[in-house]
């Protein structure tokens, strides 16, 4: 009865472009609201700035040199060792574990199965509209459909009339509704696709970021002292039709400044669209009276360069590519339990100018790593924290290379609030 549920929200390619991380331009009221009830880590870093290696690393609690996955082409249980995952560990401890959207990277790196059946109690859900993500669904100025990088869409004009993240939110809410009366605790991981490219989002979100307000990156030139090996040539965005049309030189470009601002505008618009999805999901947690009994962890697999150092995308060791948002809401520990009838996570419309600035929650400045997610979630849920890994640990199925971050949670601050409240 007292076992806490876990909702893990993983956002694809989300850098620190959030209000709660000090970005004054970004409208992310729902994620900021989560942060106001959470412990937010200001200095959290991914172990490798690319999807599959980062996700396998933090979901197994091992560093890339242990998972031996630096690309997309191997499954750690074959290539390195039969390492347990976070959901697998929760499943072995009596949780119903469920995956919605992009949690493991699809393909070989998760055995073409999202690591089922090891990690999940039920078959993972993938939104049906995902198959259109990289097809010609972007209406260009010529009125034709293209496969563009910048792709604001009219919902009535796209296949199935929906987008993957909308479908994922709907599915996750259905699962929460099912689990609210379950005798078993749940571990629900929801993986959102945006702001990963293409920037395909409901076009109204572009209005939140008028182009005249969008600046270039503060340091848009390739630094003189940057070793060539450290530079990533952002080949993926070059393959999109609207970028191809710019005839950019390889590897250094540059992208024309007006198009740089359009890329930045659409990344930010994608973040605000994602924020609405997180808002609907968290509001459902309240509606089903699960906010008092569910830990919420929010993070991303790595960041994204938006023109800094003359670079775009991830694929580097720069802070803009490795720095990630990381926050934990623990009921009654990072925030007082909501009084009867009050909501902790009421949905906030980013278009509502009245939505006021959020009070920040607890914050930690220490440097932490995504590889610490495994021990921290088990610690917060009251499970036995797996032992530290020996070196090497290929032969050890259950251990962790990161440290639990529980020492950063200052629960006593809350007790003061409690006495104040009383």
């Amino acid at each position: 009865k007292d076992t806490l549920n876990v909702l893990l929200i993983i956002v694809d390619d989300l850098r620190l472009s959030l209000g709660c991380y000090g970005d004054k331009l970004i409208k992310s009221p729902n994620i900021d609201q989560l942060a106001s009830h959470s412990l937010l880590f200001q200095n959290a870093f991914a172990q490798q700035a690319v999807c599959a290696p980062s996700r396998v690393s933090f979901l197994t609690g091992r560093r890339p040199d242990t998972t031996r996955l630096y690309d997309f082409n191997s499954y750690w249980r074959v290539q390195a060792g039969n390492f347990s995952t976070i959901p697998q560990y929760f499943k072995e401890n009596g949780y119903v574990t469920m995956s919605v959207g992009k949690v493991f990277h699809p393909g070989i790196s998760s055995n073409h199965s999202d690591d089922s059946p090891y990690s999940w109690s039920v078959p993972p859900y993938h939104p049906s509209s995902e198959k259109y993500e990289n097809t010609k669904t972007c209406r260009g100025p010529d009125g034709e459909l293209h496969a563009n990088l910048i792709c604001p869409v009219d919902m009535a004009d796209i296949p199935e009339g929906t987008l993957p993240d909308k479908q994922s939110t709907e599915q996750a809410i259905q699962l929460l509704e099912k689990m609210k009366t379950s005798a078993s605790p749940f571990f629900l991981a929801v993986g959102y696709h945006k702001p990963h490219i293409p920037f395909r989002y409901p076009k109204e979100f572009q209005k939140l970021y008028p182009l005249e307000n969008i600046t270039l990156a503060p340091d848009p030139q390739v630094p003189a002292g940057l070793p060539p090996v450290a530079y990533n040539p952002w080949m993926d965005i070059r393959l999109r039709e609207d970028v191809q049309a710019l005839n950019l030189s390889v590897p250094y470009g540059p992208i024309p400044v007006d198009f740089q601002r359009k890329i930045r505008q659409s990344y930010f618009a994608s973040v605000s669209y994602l924020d609405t999805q997180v808002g609907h999901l968290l509001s459902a947690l309240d509606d089903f009276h699960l906010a008092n009994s569910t830990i919420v962890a929010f993070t991303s697999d790595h960041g994204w360069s938006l023109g800094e150092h003359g670079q775009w995308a991830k694929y580097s060791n720069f802070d803009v590519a490795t720095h990630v948002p990381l926050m934990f809401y623990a009921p009654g520990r990072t925030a007082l339990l909501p009084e009867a009838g009050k909501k902790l996570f009421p949905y906030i419309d980013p278009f509502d100018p009245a939505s006021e600035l959020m009070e920040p929650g607890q914050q930690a400045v220490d440097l932490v790593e995504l590889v610490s997610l495994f021990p921290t979630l088990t610690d917060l849920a009251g499970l036995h924290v797996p032992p530290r890994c020996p070196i090497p640990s290929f032969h050890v199925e259950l251990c962790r290379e990161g440290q639990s971050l529980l020492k950063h949670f200052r629960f006593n601050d809350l007790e003061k609030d409690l006495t104040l409240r009383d």
Partner: protein
Amino acid sequence: NPHESIAYSQYPRPADYPQWNSDKPSLKDIKVMGYSIRTIDYRYTVWVGFNPHDFLANFSDVHAGELYFVDSDPLQDHNMYNDSQGGDLLQSLIP
């Protein structure tokens, strides 16, 4: 003490110069690995030779280095690595 906390990151490369597969090299094509130590005060990265067959990095085969100080260069635009070579600066940095 926040100054003692460290985050490690790494990134693979197929060559010392940017090429079509530099962003996402397949394992067999990885020749260099960039290992980063990030603290509250700095980011120190060495790009070293890497053997994809035995998964071993060769730290005596340094292809390039980066060193950025967070306070004076938060955007990481001024690489101080070459200025720091040989001096006792690096010794003082090693945690």
